């Protein structure tokens, strides 16, 4: 079943430049990982930002369970789709625990106890509960990423969008991320990832799209796998 679908997405940042996205159609099925691959500037990050509703001036439709993502309230969107940015965007003045608990308290109106319990459960499942009281800016890249994943999942998001998740990680953290993704998939989280890291993409590939100059140039699983092998 398709969880998130995009139909005829067109996006231009300025009239004088070629469109950033052109005639994009995609599906992100439930409980699977979908990759958006391509070189820098191919449009994969723009597409992910459209799905996260960080870019809204596109034409076409992006639907979440057949409802336009643009029409959802901020709270509904946060409860549906989590976004882990390339540079994680943790709140540096808050502790790890507060990074995960504060959005629940403010947006989902959870009590302090419930929000912190949920945050600690998720931090524990990602192996970083011992960092709960550390400041966000004291963490390594891999630790920051896991906090960002925990923060998104604390909002009960069913889908997780990850923009270039390996760009700031060393090989060890990349291997840990692979394990986290596999665990999340087992828990039924739907994941969409934009990446230009082919060895990482190959290691978690299930289905995906190749983008070039803002267009999807390949969506066949077999052909993408053959391309990755070569």
């Amino acid at each position, binding site marked *: 079943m398709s969880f998130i679908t995009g139909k005829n997405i067109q996006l231009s940042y300025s009239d004088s430049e070629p469109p950033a996205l052109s005639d994009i159609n995609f599906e992100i099925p439930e409980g699977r990982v979908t990759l958006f691959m391509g070189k820098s500037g191919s449009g994969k990050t723009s597409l992910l930002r459209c799905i996260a509703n960080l870019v809204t001036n596109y034409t076409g439709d992006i639907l979440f369970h057949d409802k336009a993502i643009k029409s959802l309230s901020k709270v509904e*969107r*946060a409860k549906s789709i989590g976004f882990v940015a390339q540079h994680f965007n943790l*709140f540096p*003045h808050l502790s790890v625990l507060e990074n995960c608990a504060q959005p629940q308290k*403010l947006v989902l109106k959870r009590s302090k106890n419930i929000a912190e319990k949920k945050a600690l459960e998720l931090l524990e499942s990602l192996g970083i509960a011992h960092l709960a009281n550390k400041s966000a800016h004291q963490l390594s890249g891999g630790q920051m990423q896991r906090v960002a994943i925990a923060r998104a999942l604390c*909002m009960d998001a069913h889908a997780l969008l990850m923009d270039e998740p390996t760009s700031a990680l060393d090989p060890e953290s990349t291997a840990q991320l692979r394990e986290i993704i596999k665990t999340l998939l087992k828990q039924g989280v739907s994941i969409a990832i934009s990446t230009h890291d082919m060895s990482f993409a190959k290691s978690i590939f299930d289905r995906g799209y190749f983008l070039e100059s803002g267009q999807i140039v390949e969506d066949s699983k077999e052909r993408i796998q053959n391309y990755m092998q070569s």
Partner: protein
Amino acid sequence: MIESALPLLLKAALITIEASALGAVFGSVFGVLMGLASCNRLKVPGISQLIAAYVTIIRGTPMFIQLLFVYFALPEIIGVDIAPLPAGVIALSINSAAYLSEIVRGGLNSIPSGQWEACETLGYSTSQALIYIILPQALKTVLPAITNEFSTLIKESSILMVIGVPELVKTSRDIVARELKPIEIYALTALIYLIMTSTVAFFTKKLEQKI
């Protein structure tokens, strides 16, 4: 002689503190509002241009003229006389609001857009994002500049003497005219200013460490 001058100078210092503190409070309120309405993320078209024009006028003209305008010209426009101290407070507020709005705008613009985006994807409303995420970070950046502005305000309040406010400089000048002891009186006046500005710096430093 110092014994007789000191109580008068301290009394005058209270008026300096009153004028500066009120100027700082009103200036901060309007400065923060204008800074918010003109920062990149919250820019209100039309309003932000008006604020830019206001800031250009205030920063490009002497505070002396602004004070004379408020005390002598404004009553003609509104048809109501303004007493010297309120006129001084209005002039200080107008002046500091312009500088503070630029400080606040700069501080807000220095926060990476990713912080706003994280708030957006987590479902924060704009006011929640501002109160819990953006302003606490921006405050840390702008605190030294705000301290500087408040210290400047204390020192610039001496200009209120020209419209007859009995603040510190006016009082010291009156005492010197009577006692003919400029070295002692002006040195003491300078010392009182130094204590006031150092106190502001001390508490701001404490606040800086706390956040």
